[in-house]
């Protein structure tokens, strides 16, 4: 048993199975609450607890595939290009909405963290909470944050936006489908985009363009925000 636990690929296999189970669970109950990343995280923690595998061993094993994160993020350019072509005539409004949302989100998180007297590491971890983890986790790591807290915040933000998104649309009287897509993608990245796709293909398309642009914009502004910390 102990020998099997030291096989480098084991953490990868365990993670794949845990994630797949998480996906199946979400498909069965059709709720954003059962996010596969969160389910897989709990299953993996359960596995580590039961087998006594060291968390360090697990993380080292996962390095076998973690390098895929960069090329996989690069690939977000492909759907972005398709949406960009399809949404040409609305680009100005989409860009304005994303820019306003992204900048105000960073300012609000920054100010709230300052009011609550959070330390630098906590603040850096929370700042990228509305963007896709592909970019957010790297930003947090580069800025000295906790990638784990960033991942959790990003997932919770996405779940929150996808559950309450249609309610927010009514609350803020966002009626135009393009504007709704901008809101879903800018505030709730990939997870809310899945919800946007259920509402209509147009809202989904705008949302998936918005999530990538919001991520890129945040990456560009982030170093500047860090100078105030």
């Amino acid at each position, binding site marked *: 048993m102990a020998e099997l636990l030291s096989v480098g690929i084991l953490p990868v296999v365990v993670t794949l199975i845990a994630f797949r189970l998480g996906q199946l669970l979400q498909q069965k109950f059709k709720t954003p609450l059962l996010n596969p990343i969160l389910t897989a995280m709990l299953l993996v923690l359960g596995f580590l607890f039961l087998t006594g595998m060291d968390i360090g061993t697990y993380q080292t094993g996962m390095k076998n595939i973690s390098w895929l994160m960069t090329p996989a993020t690069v690939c977000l350019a492909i759907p972005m290009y398709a949406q960009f072509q399809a949404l040409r005539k609305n680009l100005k409004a989409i860009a304005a909405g994303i820019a306003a949302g992204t900048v105000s989100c960073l300012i609000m998180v920054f100010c709230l963290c300052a009011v609550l007297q959070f330390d630098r590491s906590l603040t850096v971890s929370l700042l990228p909470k509305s963007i896709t983890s592909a970019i957010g986790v790297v930003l947090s790591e580069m800025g000295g944050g906790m990638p784990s807290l960033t991942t959790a915040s990003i997932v919770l933000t996405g779940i929150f936006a996808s559950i309450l998104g249609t309610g927010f649309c009514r609350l803020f009287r966002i009626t135009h489908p393009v504007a709704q897509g901008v809101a879903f993608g800018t505030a709730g990245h990939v997870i809310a985009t899945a919800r946007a796709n259920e509402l209509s293909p147009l809202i989904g398309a705008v949302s998936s363009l918005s999530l990538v642009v919001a991520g890129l914009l945040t990456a560009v502004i*982030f170093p500047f925000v860090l100078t105030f910390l």
Partner: protein
Amino acid sequence: MKYLNQLCVILGFTLAGEALQRLVPLPIPASVYGLALLFLALCAGLVKVEQVKETGAFLAGILAILFVAPAVGIVEHWALISPHLFSIGLILAATTCLTFGISGRVAQRFLKGGEDHG
């Protein structure tokens, strides 16, 4: 061979992103540069969608799995995070709601403005 060719193109852009990140003295992730370069190459017609499509969809599809490991790391930081759980939840909820409203309202203002004035 199609998948291998596509992988080569994607890894080529990834490598270009890594190179750019080391050349430009800004703390911007290599993936962001790679993403921007691939997007520009697609717009300029230097790369066709067919040259990256299937492998790109596969890689983007497994992206979420790669965040399980960072998420699991939360137990290591738990002592630091747990005293602030309520405040963190409050920040997440408040800023998500407002970011949603601001981005949607600003986009809508521009969309409606365009309709009203021609």
